[in-house]
């Protein structure tokens, strides 16, 4: 006989399903109320679309033949100067046999896949987050080490920096960085955006690194130093590798926050995912669909990152 009676779990799953269905229904009713017309079919074109590109003739001459080949047509242009005939593949033909063609005249259109603004914005968000995360990690590492240094100057500077950043809103920091520092140093808006994000995340990472280093038992340093390792070697080979393993989960959270916080750089006209979304809405009026899509894209990126870091964490757990 079991000592502990375990109640069945299925009623709770049923309740969960009911709540989710209820929420979906509520959302649907709400959009009915405001007479919103969903136009999801407008969204895919903002990821990628087929652009019409005019096919220009490289030579002047006369259309000598048009050969059909499935959806494609081949326009054959025989140059006026008696050179070899040129074959131009097009999807919509705009000329007839015998037409005189000048150089750079269009003989028809063909289609090419182009990347849409949502994909472009997503890409900008990813690489801005990546670069500022990397720079922030470096800043955080240095600041974290200064923060626990015995030198009062280094420690004081580290504390000042951390407190300044943590005590002010990121949005304000971005404006200051762009309008003040950016103007003084004549920075590009992308550089200013990345700089502001890196400084912001660096302050938080510094505190994470500091806590990580302080969580490593003193005996580790004593063992390393008693073997003749210098303070630097002790940090590099003994303390930091162990500290890094411990701070991976909070660091992961910080990087995920960074991706989300990077949406704020749209205020200094960097066309990231958020700004792309706003621009698309002014053209398509598909407000709800685009914002939902943008949210979903952020969710995909942050979930992928959290999976990656989870995998990394398990790899490092080998020595436990």
């Amino acid at each position, binding site marked *: 006989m079991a000592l502990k009676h375990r109640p069945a779990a299925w009623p709770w799953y049923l309740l969960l399903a009911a709540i989710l269905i209820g929420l979906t229904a509520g959302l649907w009713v709400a959009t009915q109320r405001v007479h919103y017309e969903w136009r999801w079919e407008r969204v895919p074109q903002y990821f990628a679309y087929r652009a019409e590109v005019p096919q220009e003739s490289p030579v002047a001459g006369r259309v000598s033949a048009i050969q059909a080949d499935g959806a494609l047509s081949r326009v054959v242009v025989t140059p006026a100067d008696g050179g070899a005939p040129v074959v131009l593949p097009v999807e919509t033909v705009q000329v007839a046999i015998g037409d005189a063609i000048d150089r750079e005249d269009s003989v028809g259109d063909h289609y090419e896949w182009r990347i849409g603004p949502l994909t472009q914005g997503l890409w900008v968000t990813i690489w801005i987050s990546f670069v500022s995360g990397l720079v922030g990690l470096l800043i955080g590492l240095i600041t974290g080490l200064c923060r626990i240094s015995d030198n009062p100057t280094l420690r004081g500077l580290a504390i000042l920096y951390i407190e300044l950043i943590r005590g002010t809103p990121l949005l304000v920091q971005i404006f200051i960085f762009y309008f003040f520092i950016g103007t003084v140093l004549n920075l590009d808006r992308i550089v200013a955006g990345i700089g502001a994000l890196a400084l912001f995340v660096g302050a938080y990472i510094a505190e994470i690194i500091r806590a990580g280093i302080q969580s490593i038992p003193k005996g580790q340093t004593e*063992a390393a130093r*008693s073997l003749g390792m210098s303070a630097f070697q002790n940090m590099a080979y*003994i303390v930091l590798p162990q500290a890094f393993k411990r701070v991976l989960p909070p660091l992961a959270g910080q990087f995920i926050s960074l991706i989300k916080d990077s949406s704020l750089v749209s205020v200094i006209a960097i066309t990231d995912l958020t700004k792309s979304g706003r621009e698309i809405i002014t053209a398509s009026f598909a407000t709800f669909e685009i914002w939902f899509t943008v949210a979903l894209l952020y969710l995909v990126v942050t979930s992928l990152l959290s999976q990656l870091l989870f995998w990394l964490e398990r790899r490092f757990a080998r020595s436990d």
Partner: protein
Amino acid sequence: MIEVKNLLKVFEGRGQPVRAVDDVSTAVAMGEVVVIVGPSGSGKSTFLRCLNGLEEFDDGQVLIDGIDIAGSKTNLNTVRREVGMVFQHFNLFPHKTVLENLTLAQRVVRKRKAGEANERAMALLTKVGIAEKANEYPSRLSGGQQQRVAIARALAMDPKVMLFDEPTSALDPEMVGEVLDVMKQLAREGMTMAVVTHEMGFAREVAQRVLFMDAGRILEDAPPAQFFTAPQEPRAQAFLKQVL
């Protein structure tokens, strides 16, 4: 080998400052095994930790092989290469395998090539009877095995002196023997050793001199035969009555 002159170490607590090591002078000759005993809080561990500068002392002098470890021109890291230390809680590097624990300092401090460092490490692991665990992580080892690895790690630097800070105090009783055996073998081979321990059997069998410390002072300094049978100081007599 080790010379200590008027060593003073004061801990500034919230209350009265405590003289953990109070005007201690002694010496350990080459090849000598000195065991330091005394009640807890007597300052024996602090004294030992002063010998390789892990504890910064307030006054006095420590000379290792004639080099003043607190001297303004002394590179403490260079001195420490020659002074191996074994800790109560082993302090193995948990993120490194057993073999890496032994080779890391050889490579980065002694600048040995990987092949040479591995060879030295394997020879020492064989010596302490643990070669088959070379590629395990320390967390997989028992306490006794970890402490033997820690001894091998210190020996891998080819030190001239070995300091032991209560090397068996954190071990389960059945594992004390295997660690003491390694230390006895080391003593037989002529290693200069300073050992803080509560293992009176070890002191009696291996030590050339026993130092009894209480309240930061060395109260007795005698060969084990004399110390264990006819201690002079009343406090040493009281201590021995309790532990024997």
